[in-house]
């Protein structure tokens, strides 16, 4: 049905991306003025086919109008006023034909001395010819009214000003929320009989047959041959006022019609043979109104002005009209609508028609007749997309219609429409045109391809985002379920888990304690980019010098991509410059930022929206899911040393340095002990010591060792170690799975005894001894076998910490064995609790004693010493037995 026109697209130049509301192209003799919506206007010469000048204005140019004498042009600058720029004086044209080294465009700064009229609210303007000098007509918006101002074209003296109140509400000013501001459209209409109408017409100037002119605008304007200014307002009103008509009663500005949508174009279709001339107004959303002179109704007879309304599919970005019809662009296509079709039988049934809304009164004798049958035919596509500004139409030498078009991407094009459209669909084009058509079709295909590829990439990225979001949601569900299940579910049940191990390593000739976290992903989901492993190190007690403030730090490691059953190893130094006090709690969590999914801008938009920001746990687009928490205590941070002469193949560290360190540690501990002032010896024999006793039976059950009756002891790691060795190994390795090198530091002595030498982080010497003893007393029955674990240490703090750690380790043992061991109830439990409480109290005492020491050395040494000594004594007096 639709005749496909092959439009020849001839690209002249390219500019940057344009703003669709203000882009304009104006033909100016051989020059084209291109206004892109910025504060620059480009002058393009069509003969030389190059950019000859760039005019830089002080503020954004929203409209460009050619002057009547074609010597200069007017630029409407937003928030400023109207500038008049003389064109011939601007570029000094090169006399020689353009060569390859032709100079680039000249840049001209338009200064405020070219300002013709200052009016901050000015939106649009038009220049009108008159016998006694030309007139500038501007429209501006201020104080809730549209102001039409008349200026003389020479001297720019304001002649008159009249207003039309702004109609508030009821119309959409924006373009569906994209913030497109519509501007009024001005046009100047003269009667064909008017004497001044003989001159050639420029943009926005139209001639109208006298009858229609009189019907639309009244006879008065026709009496004085006055031009009429038509203005299409963004609120949809099409209003008019005669330019030279003074002292007439009534308001000067009259509303002819209302389109009820922003008006994009006002013009006339010049008279053709096939139909009468008409006035055309096109609304933003596709409403087309035609005004024609037609026969009145049966009651009145005579001629009346009839308004016909029709609809095309919008949005209409720009339009122009000639005798053939109305050319308009919807952004995705350029279409031509035949206006000349007076034959009403051409109406196709599928056409979208809007019938007039009852009788309305026009001015003068113009009475609107609602016409049920529309005169609109269906538009024909020209297959040119993204046109946002049109100029013309003009006819070239071969009678073809040419349009100047500016596309959204800033491409300036000449569109040549085939001249003969009647036979175009059936007649075979001459062979010379076939090539051209193929080229055009290819260009059109290319355009469509461009669009398709950009759409494809958008779809791709959306899909990726969705996939990512799905993964994230699954992981979230898993981890939340874990959190709900609590900490008591075993490690193997947790699909995503973090192993935390503290170990010593040697870096730059210095031993340092490194916390190693292994993120184990045994879930079926991939941890994508955007996830972070956060490790928070939180000391249980605060260090002294931080003044009671809890000193914690958090380190985040971005997860690159962790496949199912993959592992990620991260490590961080545990001992910082500031003395870390043990034990510390290490909390691992996985966090996810929406930013990686949405991008920064979108995220800030979403957050500003307030929907997400109010969700708990989503501050700043982050949410965090806890993995597990572990405590690193004194036992974990002990640096096990092998006494000289033991297994040299141990991979831990160079024995020489270790021994050196030991010596150093010894010396320093000695020095510190000297500080107490009472001459306490600090040799190995005089180390501070504390001990606990644990029932052998309990240990065997807990460590799942076999009874000593079996000939060959089979400990989990070192079968030769016996129960004592096993206990020490367990203590040092925390019973966790995997190879623990520290266990090898345990030296099994004679039967029933094992010793571990170690250093604490501050450098003090630690000796852990496990001995099998037989105890008897009031609370337990005689001859109970037990293992005594003795902690010997040169430093009081370390001793207390170790003791505390020992008790903490053993406590779960007791709990675990409680169900199986009948004997571990009653007095023994009580005793244990008492012992634990005592240890806690001692630790607090010790911390207190350290405070004065930290404030200033040498103060209150006596009291500190006393306290420490009492702690020491209490520790020694109450050996613990755990059954």
């Amino acid at each position, binding site marked *: 049905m639709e005749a496909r026109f092959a439009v020849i697209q001839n690209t002249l130049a390219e500019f940057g991306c344009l703003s669709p509301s203000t882009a304009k192209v104006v033909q100016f003799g051989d020059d084209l003025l291109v206004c892109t919506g910025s504060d620059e206007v480009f002058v393009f010469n069509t003969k030389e086919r190059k950019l000859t000048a760039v005019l830089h204005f002080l503020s954004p140019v929203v409209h460009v109008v050619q002057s009547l004498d074609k010597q200069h042009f007017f630029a409407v600058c937003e928030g400023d006023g109207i500038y008049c720029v003389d064109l011939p004086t601007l570029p000094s044209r090169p006399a020689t034909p353009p060569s390859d080294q032709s100079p680039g465009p000249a840049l001209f700064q338009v200064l405020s001395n070219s300002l013709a009229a200052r009016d901050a609210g000015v939106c649009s303007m038009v220049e009108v010819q008159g016998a006694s000098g030309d007139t500038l007509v501007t429209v501006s918006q201020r104080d809730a009214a549209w102001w039409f101002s008349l200026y003389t074209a020479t001297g720019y003296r304001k002649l008159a000003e009249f207003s039309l109140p702004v109609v508030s509400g009821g119309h959409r000013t924006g373009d569906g929320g994209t913030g497109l501001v519509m501007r009024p459209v001005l046009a100047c209409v003269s009667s064909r009989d008017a004497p001044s109408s003989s001159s050639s017409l420029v943009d926005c100037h139209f001639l109208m047959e006298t009858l229609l002119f009189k019907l639309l605008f009244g006879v008065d304007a026709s009496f*004085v041959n006055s031009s009429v200014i038509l203005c299409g307002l963004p609120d949809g009103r099409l209003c008019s006022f005669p330019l*030279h*008509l*003074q002292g*007439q009663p009534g308001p000067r500005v009259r509303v002819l019609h209302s389109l009820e949508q922003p008006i994009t174009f006002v013009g006339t279709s010049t008279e053709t043979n096939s139909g009468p001339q008409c006035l055309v107004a096109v609304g933003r959303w596709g409403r087309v109104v035609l005004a024609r002179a037609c026969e*009145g109704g049966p009651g009145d007879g*005579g001629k009346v002005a009839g308004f016909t309304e029709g609809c095309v599919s919008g949005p209409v970005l720009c339009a122009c009209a000639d005798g053939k019809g109305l050319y308009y662009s919807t952004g995705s296509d350029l279409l031509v609508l035949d206006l000349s079709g007076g034959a009403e039988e051409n109406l196709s049934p599928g056409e979208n028609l809007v019938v007039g809304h009852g009788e309305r009164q026009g001015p003068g*004798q113009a009475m609107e007749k609602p016409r049920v049958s529309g005169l609109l035919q269906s538009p024909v596509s020209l297959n040119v997309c993204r046109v946002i500004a049109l100029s013309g139409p003009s006819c070239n030498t071969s009678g073809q219609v040419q349009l100047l078009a500016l596309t959204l991407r800033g491409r300036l094009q000449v569109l040549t429409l085939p001249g003969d459209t009647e036979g175009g669909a059936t007649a075979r084009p001459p062979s010379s045109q076939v090539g051209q058509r193929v080229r055009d079709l290819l260009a059109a295909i290319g355009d469509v391809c461009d669009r398709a590829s950009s759409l494809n990439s958008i779809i791709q990225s959306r899909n990726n985002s969705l996939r990512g979001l799905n993964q994230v949601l699954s992981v979230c569900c898993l981890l939340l379920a874990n959190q709900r299940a609590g900490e008591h579910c075993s490690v193997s049940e947790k699909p995503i888990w973090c192993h935390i191990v503290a170990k010593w390593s040697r870096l730059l000739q210095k031993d340092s304690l490194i916390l190693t976290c292994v993120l184990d992903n045994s879930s079926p989901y991939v941890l994508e980019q955007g996830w972070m492993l956060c490790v928070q190190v939180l000391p249980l007690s605060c260090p002294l010098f931080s003044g009671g403030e809890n000193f914690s730090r958090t380190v985040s490691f971005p997860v690159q991509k962790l496949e199912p059953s993959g592992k990620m190893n991260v490590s961080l130094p545990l001992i910082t410059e500031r003395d870390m006090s043990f034990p510390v709690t290490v909390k691992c969590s996985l966090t996810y930022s929406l930013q990686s999914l949405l991008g920064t801008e979108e995220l800030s938009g979403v957050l500003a929206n307030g929907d997400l920001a109010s969700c708990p746990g989503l501050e700043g687009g982050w949410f965090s899911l806890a993995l597990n928490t572990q405590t690193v205590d004194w036992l974990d941070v002990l640096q096990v040393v092998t006494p000289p002469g033991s297994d040299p193949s141990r991979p831990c560290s160079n024995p020489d340095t270790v021994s050196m360190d030991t010596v150093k540690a010894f010396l320093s501990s000695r020095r510190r002990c000297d500080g107490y002032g009472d001459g306490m010896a600090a040799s190995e024999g005089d180390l501070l010591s504390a001990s606990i006793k644990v029932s052998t039976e309990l240990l065997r059950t807990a460590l799942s060792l076999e009874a000593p009756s079996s000939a060959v002891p089979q400990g989990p790691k070192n079968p030769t170690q016996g129960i004592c060795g096993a206990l020490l190994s367990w203590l040092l390795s925390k019973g966790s799975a995997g190879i623990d090198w520290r266990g090898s530091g345990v030296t099994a002595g004679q039967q029933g005894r094992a010793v571990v030498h170690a250093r604490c982080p501050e450098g003090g010497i630690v000796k852990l001894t496990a001995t099998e003893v037989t105890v008897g007393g009031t609370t337990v029955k005689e001859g109970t076998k037990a293992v005594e674990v003795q902690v010997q240490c040169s430093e009081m703090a370390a001793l207390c910490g170790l003791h505390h750690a020992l008790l903490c380790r053993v406590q779960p043992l007791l709990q675990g064995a409680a169900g199986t061991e009948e004997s571990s109830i009653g007095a023994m439990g009580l005793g244990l609790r008492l012992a634990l409480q005592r240890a806690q109290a001692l630790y607090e005492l010790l911390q207190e004693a350290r405070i004065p020491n930290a404030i200033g050395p040498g103060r209150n040494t006596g009291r500190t010493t006393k306290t420490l000594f009492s702690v020491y004594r209490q520790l020694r007096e109450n050996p613990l037995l755990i059954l």
Partner: protein
Amino acid sequence: MRQSNRGKVQKLRRERSQGFEEDFVTAMFQESDTCLLDQWTEENNAIVKKCKQHTDRGDSVSREQGMQLLTWAFEASHKLLQIIQGVPAGPALVQLELAVVYNFCLFSFSQTKVTEAELLLTHSLERALGAVHCVHSPPDLPVFWRRVLKALGSTSSLRSGCLHLLCVHWALWLSTYSLGHILELQQELLSLCETLEEEQDDRRKAVEGGVERSAVSPALVMNPRELKDSLHICTVIAQAAERLCEGQCLEALKLLQKDPCPLAPRDLLAKIHTLTGLCLSRMGRPHSAVQCYRKALETDVRCFSALHQSILVYRQLGNTQAEIQALSLLHSALMMPHITQTFMGPPPLVCTAFLLPGKSLSSLLSVPSSLSVLHCLAQKCVLHGSVSEGVEHYLDLLAALQSDQQLSPVSCEASSLPRLPELYLEAASSLLMGQRPVDCLALCEEVISQTGDVLPERLQLEEPVEGSGDQNRLELVLWCGAAYLLQAHCYAHLKDWKPAVSLYTQCINLLIKVCVIQKSCAKQGMCVQSLQRLKGLALACRGISFLHREQKREALRDLQLSLQAAPGCAGAGLWMTEVLWKLGRRQEAAVCWETTQSSSLPPLSEDVPIYLLDPQNGPALDLTDLRVRMEEFTKT
């Protein structure tokens, strides 16, 4: 508490700095302070000097130059003010600052930046209050000013500056039409006037006594006393206009006659006289009012509103000749390039239009546009004697309308010229009256050609027609019909009866297509009245033409129809008597004569357009002959 702390700190500092050093530093600061003060004062004085020089040069400065200078002065004083306000206020500085604010505000008037001026003014006053340790400033303006006057009035150096600013604020209130504030502060403003007079006297005495004023005192761009005088008179005018619009003429008169200020500008005095005249004319004393208007014109020749008001009074008194004279005077005055005259020379610092923005005043003193005055003049001339003059005026009017020059620079929405076709018809009928039938024919032809192609074929109307959309279409018919009628009159005038009859017929044919449905017995609207009168006229005139063509039966029919349509058109009754007589129906003629003589027709209202009046120089009936015949017949 804080004070005591500060005291302690100062004490401590004094103790530490051991006297000598401290004094030295303070002295240094004071030195530089006064230097700056002098510098700023000189800067201010330079601005004022430059402005005054320009004003003194008078007309040699163009308006644009004057405006540019004022803009420059505004910006320069604004900058200076900003610099000064960057320093904490001290008494000496405040004195300068008040003077600079005074100048700045006066400059701002010409830039129409009133709100900015008001803000800076109150800000400066607050700073001044701060300088005399009066911190709290009430938001209410009159209360604020009372506080300011009380706080600063005691300090002699600040008192005058503060009073000058009160003048400026007064001007601001006038310009924003806040008469309430002025009324509230009436007492203060009165005492301000007295103080300024005294100040002026003191200064004169000081100058006479040869006392040198200190060289660096800040200069003012306008003498506050002059400003005060115009403010005072403007206040009177604004208040009187308000009263007058409310209908309280007596109170307005009292206000206006209270204290004449002979030194005030001429235009303001003329306004006072005009308003007094308005009061008097509204109180029913037109003669006294005319005296006032004359006084106003004597005071200021450009007081056109007085001239316009006197025209209205003459019209009311029925003094047509005086009215015509005044109209032609007003028209020639309006046509004088007075507007460009005011554009010459530098603009005044404070123009009266700025001080008198009230709508009531402008509506009272409004003057119609020159075109509407010209139309009025032409109409009066044609109706009252001097037809040839009227014709000339009409032709001038049409020429002015045809030219696309915008004569009135202001918007004239309320101007009352009739529609253009009506003007053409009026001009055409005046041409006919002036014995220029050919020109009349041409003008009518223009109307017919313009309206002919848009005429409705039939028109069915319902009363009332006015205001409805049908009015336009009915008017078209009326205009076209009237044009035919006038053309026919022309041929009748030329005694060319055949075309006259055919044109009358065309007119009648046009009119009978209009069918008016009378709904109620309410008074007919203007349009319908015109339609009936036009129909009656056309029929009567066609009848007369038929009679001249010796078609007596047709003549009788038309005259009868005319009497039915609208009685009394073109002496239809008398002509019918004549026709009947000529037909030999003498009895009927006598009855017709009797009824015509006895019936008293209502006089035509003033609103009937000229072109619908009875044709003056058409075919005449020898009335004395008819009367003699009739009286003889009735006797017998």
